């Protein structure tokens, strides 16, 4: 029995030959193994009719996955969020513009509008159809920070996330050819609605049931390769979670700091109200502080949009990976249990072969023992045949699933490296920009402080009533009397000579 098991598993076995199909499904290049990073040439695609998105086109290189330049033949752009209000609800749609040279598409250009729920539908369909492939995540339905889902900031962030989603899809060698994806990109509104309702899709046998989850734990023969992937993903998600939390804490401290700055700056302005010869320096200080606090405010907002959101999305991505791992495990589980069953049946067959059916139930019922034996043997043969087929099928699926995941993980790692690099470079740039703005503000302040003070004489000539001996700028009491009595009008003088306060 042991050897038959080995026979089954070894490819050289002639009797129960398992056919190993090429795991690479048709449609993929042989060059799929070598990924070169693509820097999209914006000029090739920009057109006047989509001028609004041309800048985004230029930025597409930010979101692109690693794709072979020569094979890139599907480009998708998300932009132009618009709010719609119907009787039942208010929602936002985005414009999806597609350009392609693929023959599967009827045309080379398409433009449609889709809403977030449409994306949800698409993702669900893809997960059902390709349970063993890594489907990119979508941003969460609601943001905890931005409560107004129609605010321009929220929409901008969502648009970027949706763009990333579609770009990753279009660069995926398998997912990009999905029919639902094509419909999503091309169908007009009514077509699309009908398709959504009607579309049966391939009902996935691999739903993420408890069965699947438990499969991972009961796995006996899981290749260490996948355990490693699981552990890596687990650790990675944890690290990103920590980074996200750290970032939130920093933002909180920065927000508090900004509040203090907003209180601090005005004190200099108030102080300038008491001084006549220090007005310019004091106002310069106040202005510099204001500029710094403004710069920090903007840094905080940008951090939320361009750092926290992508971080969270990557954590969602790891959830998707874990789901694929689970499904893969489930397939392997089923494959293994099928093998067990098959072996059992084969054992039974051997057993029946040498058995004596004289005392079987069939004989008891009056049948010829030989016939009973034959019947049983036939039945077993049939079962064995079915199980063998099932086992082959599952073996295929296991191998496919393994390869799909392996290939996707390789791509994911490359993309992750690129994405992470860009994410942190941008974060560093943000800090540098903040410091540069503050630097300039203080340099300007020094210039203003050191500049020749708008002369006391000018102030004198502006205000007249209060002191009669204004004209004499001697060093007597009269001088100081002017100073102290002109503090009240210095304020007006200040506003006259300092237009931008």
């Amino acid at each position, binding site marked *: 029995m042991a050897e038959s098991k080995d026979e089954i598993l070894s490819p050289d076995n002639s009797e129960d030959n398992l056919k190993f199909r090429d795991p690479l499904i048709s449609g993929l290049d042989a060059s799929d193994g070598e990924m070169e990073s693509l820097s999209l040439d914006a000029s090739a695609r920009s057109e006047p009719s989509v001028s609004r998105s041309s800048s985004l086109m230029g930025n597409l290189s930010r979101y692109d996955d690693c794709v072979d330049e020569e094979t890139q033949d599907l480009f998708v752009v998300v932009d132009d969020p618009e709010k719609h209000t119907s009787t039942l609800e208010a929602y936002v749609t985005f414009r999806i513009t597609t350009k392609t040279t693929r023959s599967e598409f009827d045309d080379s250009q398409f433009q449609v509008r889709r809403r977030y729920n449409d994306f949800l539908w698409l993702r669900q369909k893809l997960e059902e159809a390709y349970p063993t492939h890594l489907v990119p995540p979508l941003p969460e339905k609601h943001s905890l920070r931005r409560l107004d889902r129609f605010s321009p900031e929220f929409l901008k962030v969502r648009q970027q996330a949706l763009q990333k989603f579609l770009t990753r899809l279009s660069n995926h060698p398998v997912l990009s050819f999905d029919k639902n994806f094509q419909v999503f990109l091309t169908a007009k509104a009514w077509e699309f609605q009908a398709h959504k309702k009607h579309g049966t899709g391939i009902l996935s046998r691999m739903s993420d049931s408890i069965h699947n989850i438990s499969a991972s734990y009961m796995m006996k023969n899981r290749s260490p390769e996948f355990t490693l992937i699981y552990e890596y993903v687990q650790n990675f998600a944890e690290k990103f979670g*920590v980074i996200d939390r750290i970032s939130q804490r920093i933002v909180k401290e920065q927000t508090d700091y900004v509040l203090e700055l907003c209180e601090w700056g005005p004190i200099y302005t108030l102080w300038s109200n008491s001084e006549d010869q220090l007005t310019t320096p004091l106002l310069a200080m106040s202005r510099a502080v204001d500029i710094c606090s403004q710069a920090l405010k903007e840094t905080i907002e940008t951090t939320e949009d361009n750092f926290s959101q992508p971080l969270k999305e990557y954590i969602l991505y790891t959830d998707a990976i874990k789901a694929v791992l689970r499904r893969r495990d489930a397939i392997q589980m089923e494959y293994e249990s099928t093998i067990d069953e098959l072996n059992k049946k084969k054992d039974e067959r051997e057993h029946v072969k040498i058995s004596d059916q004289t005392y079987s139930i069939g004989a008891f019922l009056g049948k010829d023992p030989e016939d009973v034996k034959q019947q049983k043997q036939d039945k077993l043969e049939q079962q064995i045949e079915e199980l063998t087929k099932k086992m082959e099928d599952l073996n295929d699926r296991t191998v496919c699933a393994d390869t799909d995941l392996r290939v996707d993980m390789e791509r994911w790692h490359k993309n992750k*490296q690129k994405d992470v690099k860009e994410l942190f470079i941008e974060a560093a740039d943000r800090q540098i920009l903040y410091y540069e703005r*503050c*630097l300039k503000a203080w340099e300007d302040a020094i210039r203003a402080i050191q500049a020749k003070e708008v002369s006391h004489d000018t102030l004198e000539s502006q205000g007249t009533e209060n002191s009669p001996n204004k004209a004499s700028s001697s060093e*007597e009491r009269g001088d100081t009397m002017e100073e102290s*009595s002109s503090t009240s009008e210095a304020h007006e003088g200040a506003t006259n000579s300092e237009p931008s306060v």
Partner: protein
Amino acid sequence: MADDDSIPKYSPEGLSHDSVEEDPFENARKADKKNLLQWMEIAVAEPEKRVVTSMKVQDTFIVYLVETRITDKNIKYNGDGTSSLWRRYSEFELLQNYLSITYPYVVVPPLPEKKASYIWQNSPTDKFDAEFIERRRAALEIFMLRVAAHPILSQDRIFIGFMQQEDGWKESVYLTDFQSKAESRLKALSASFRLQNPDRQYDELKNYCTELESNISNLLKIRARMADKLYGIHKIHGNYGRVFNEWSGIEKEMAEPLQSASHYMNVFAQSVDGILEEEEQYADQLKEYLAFADSLRSVCRKYECLQYDVERAEDNLSYKKSQKEMLEQGKTGGTFSLSGMKTKLFGSDTPEQRDQKLKQLDEQIKHTEEEVQSTSQELQNFIDASMRDIDRFKRQKVKDLKEIFTNYAVMQIKQCKKGIAIWTSAKDCYTKM
């Protein structure tokens, strides 16, 4: 205004071979030097801890080395032209107190605060902490330089003795009996309330003091809170350092860049300590002007006391004059008076008695007139002198604050550049991922 006969010897080592006893201060005055810093260097250095046991009680305190050195070759002196002795904070206080009382028309430079206030939470409050002592030393030096730069205060013998008279300086201070010239708080308070004709300038100056104090203390208060937040921001970045390090453990190609980046996150976190230490300087400079406001207010208070004296003398005079008038006219002064009663009961004065009284009143009037004159003169002198010094103070203040603000801006620029450098290095690490 100080009168001190004991001229301290410049060279403590004893008489030099020069037969002529040179007093460099006298020589400097003859050479038309306006203040000490024009020909002398002064420093407060080297704080040291001293422990003194007296009557079984141990007293620990810090002493500072006060050093001087003559830098102008044209001023003749005996010895090597240097001096140095140890002074503790309480002696500085005594000096400052003496100067404030002896020269009430001068805006006397203030001392650093006795106890730290408006400090950022991690700043040292312990008076034996090295940072605190260093900051105090710097502030004491500034105090000495300001006094030495003052045309009037720098000539004071007690001040000179503070720098050069090792033994018996305290006694010589008390010998001046300066405390008797101090105005009681109560008098000052009542003076400010009861003035009939106050000079508006001083009222305005008092208002200015209040505003200045309020503005500066608000600045300091919020600055301390800002320091807390800035500290938090930087230190939390240190956590990035830790997690980058851990993360590098599960990566292959990204491992090295992550570790380098981790290092820069730690650098960023640690940089805050230097930043906040520098910013304490700014706080100290503002605190000095906060204390200056109080000094300025003292001058105003002295004015009010003097004005009060004048008004009282004038009131006295007019009262006495009206008394004389009534006596001359034989009236018994108003509807009800003691003399009126007396007249009714015992009969009016005899001509001799009346003459006596008139003579007395005349004397008193003459006396009071002299008083009015002297207090008015004193008041006028005070106003002249104080206004001159207040003017000097104002000009100094403008210069100082411009410099203080400029220094703060320079500090900020330095910090920004440092931040840019650190984040650029981190960015370099990221580009290698």
